[in-house]
């Protein structure tokens, strides 16, 4: 296969991941958010599989398979169940100003492009683009986490962030421990999901009501 086509496909998949990250930003229903996240994981798995193919690194297929089975299927289904059990499936989440969030997202993507492309003038162009996209996905995941109040959507933000890290790790040619790291992250996520389920954490505990805050912190007098 000729070099520019492999490059274009890798580029398209990584760019697609950034696009799906944007879609996460404006979902106001939990089910829709979970579905978009499943799509996010699917795109990641395709991207990792493509990297495994062009780098000739068969172990990366394991990471791709984890992304596909665990992140795109098992976790969204488990979260669907939790959302139903907790009775928050009808909730419409007031996402703080969709317009502003999208603008902030664009700012973050521009920032990561400027930072990464300037920092890596000599690196391999594919790795450069991948890193820039990965940083965008990481920052957009963080943005999802800070703009949401619900524990489930925060976890979705964290998982999107983590997908960005996996993208970065697979883009770094020949990086060791990628599979181990993706397994470690999957365990971490499983822990979080079990945590939500067992302890029925519905809300992030931060609240604008200072009285409630002081009570939580045991500092009310």
């Amino acid at each position: 296969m000729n070099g520019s086509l492999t490059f274009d496909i890798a580029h398209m998949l990584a760019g697609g991941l950034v696009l799906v990250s944007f879609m996460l930003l404006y979902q106001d229903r939990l089910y829709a958010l979970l579905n978009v996240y499943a799509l996010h994981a699917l795109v990641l798995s395709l991207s990792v599989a493509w990297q495994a193919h062009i780098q000739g690194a068969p172990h990366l297929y394991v990471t791709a398979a984890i992304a596909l089975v665990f992140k795109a299927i098992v976790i969204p289904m488990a979260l669907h169940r939790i959302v139903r059990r907790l009775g928050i499936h009808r909730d419409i989440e007031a996402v703080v100003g969709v317009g502003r969030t999208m603008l902030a997202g664009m700012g973050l993507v521009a920032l990561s492009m400027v930072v990464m492309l300037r920092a890596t003038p000599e690196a391999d162009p594919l790795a450069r683009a991948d890193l820039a996209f990965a940083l965008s996905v990481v920052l957009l995941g963080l943005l999802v986490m800070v703009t949401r109040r619900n524990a489930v959507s925060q976890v979705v933000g964290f998982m999107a962030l983590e997908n960005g890290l996996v993208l970065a790790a697979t883009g770094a040619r020949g990086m060791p421990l990628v599979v181990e790291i993706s397994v470690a992250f999957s365990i971490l996520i499983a822990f979080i999901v079990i945590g939500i389920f067992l302890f029925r954490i519905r809300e992030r505990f931060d609240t604008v009501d200072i009285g409630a805050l002081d009570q939580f912190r045991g500092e009310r007098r």
Partner: protein
Amino acid sequence: MIALPFAPQTAVLVVPVVAAAVLAALPGYRLTARINVLASLLTLLAALSLFVTERPPAGSYLFIDDLNIVFIVLNTFVGFTASVFSASYIGHELHTGRLTAANLRFYHAMYQIMLFGMNLALVANNIGLMWVAVELATLTTVVMVGIYRTHEALEAAWKYFILGSVGIALALFGTILVYMAAQPEVVGEGYDAMVWTLLVERAATFDPALLNLAFVFLLLGYGTKVGLAPLHAWLPDAHAEGPTPISAVLSGLLLNVALYVVLRFKILLAASPEAIAPGPLMVTMGLASLIFAAFMLYRRRDIKRLFAYSSIEHMGIIVFAFGMGGPLANFAGLLHMVMHSLTKSAIFYAVGHIAQVKGTQAIADIRGLTETHPVLGWGFLVGAVAIAGLPPLGIFMSEFLLVSSTFSTEPLLAVALVFGLLVALGAIFLRTTAIAFGEPTGSTAPVEASYVPMFAHLALVLVAGLYLPPPLVGWFQHVAGLLG
């Protein structure tokens, strides 16, 4: 040099793992608490034997050098004394029904896994392995913080979990960037490009722009674990709501382990001449943490939260010291780190018993402690005097060294530093005198406490304030030189 039948750096890892497996299987808290103490003691002995045995050459996963020995010995020592304290503390918790026997099994197993994770992070020679180890140590402390299952404890654990995960994610991105900076042409693909000793040897040829970016991510990521402002939000909750032995271990050890990782990357950056100087970044974050925490101390009404903020303050001082760099400031930073670990854990040992006997953590409800419980009260007061940085205790010495070295290089920064120190001193003084003196309140029942760990730590801090043995000074000077 003595030849031992086992390699000590392996023993500090194997002992906790085996102990965790045994503790998870055994019922009965008296026995398991003793095994926990014994295992921690064995780990401490293994760590001490690192001084006398011959060092193996750096492997691709583990290595020992003059820097991490200091951390390992401190880590295992506080781990051991905290296990002694934990044995008496836990008995009371079981008695009052706050914890069940099943909880305790879990607690002891997790305690050893946490020690394993921290020791692994300290001996790791691979930046990927280091990251995994810090993650492991964090996860175990998260479940321990939430062990009481109260609303507040779960909130604290959740907050710690989410913030810790974000920190760890940023740190991983930084780690990947370091790998990229050590591009294949320089070190070669695969495992070698993540081995710290190889990275440092060849750091001069790395891509400086990528390395700079990597350090920013690493400082933010691991800085969350160190508890630097503005990434500190998890720390007070985790300290206040978890069992007190865990508060002691968090303040005394986990923060140091994260700091150690930051220092490793600082050395890496220093070895690359074209990269930015990491110092100013660390100085800024350190100073911000110090001043922020110093003011926050005044508003605290919960005794464990008070000392949690004091940990943020002291980690700020230590990061400031290492950021200033140079032999004297690094020496002060190392000394301060050791003194802070010993003092802060001693304070938490006292606070744990105080909160148990008085049945509350609210400062307003604890009065006249030196009258109702003289030994505990005076021990606590000595710890508070030490942490406030008054002479003749060890922390005064390290703060004095730091202030004087800063005055000679950057007088303006020294003024800010002294200001922060004085503000914090005032807050600690105000709160602790109220606790120690005044009209006694609350229960006067005798407390079943083991005072040995607390007084052992305080004695070490006092001795260090009066006289530092020359071999120790020589060792610290050598390590301070390594840190650049």
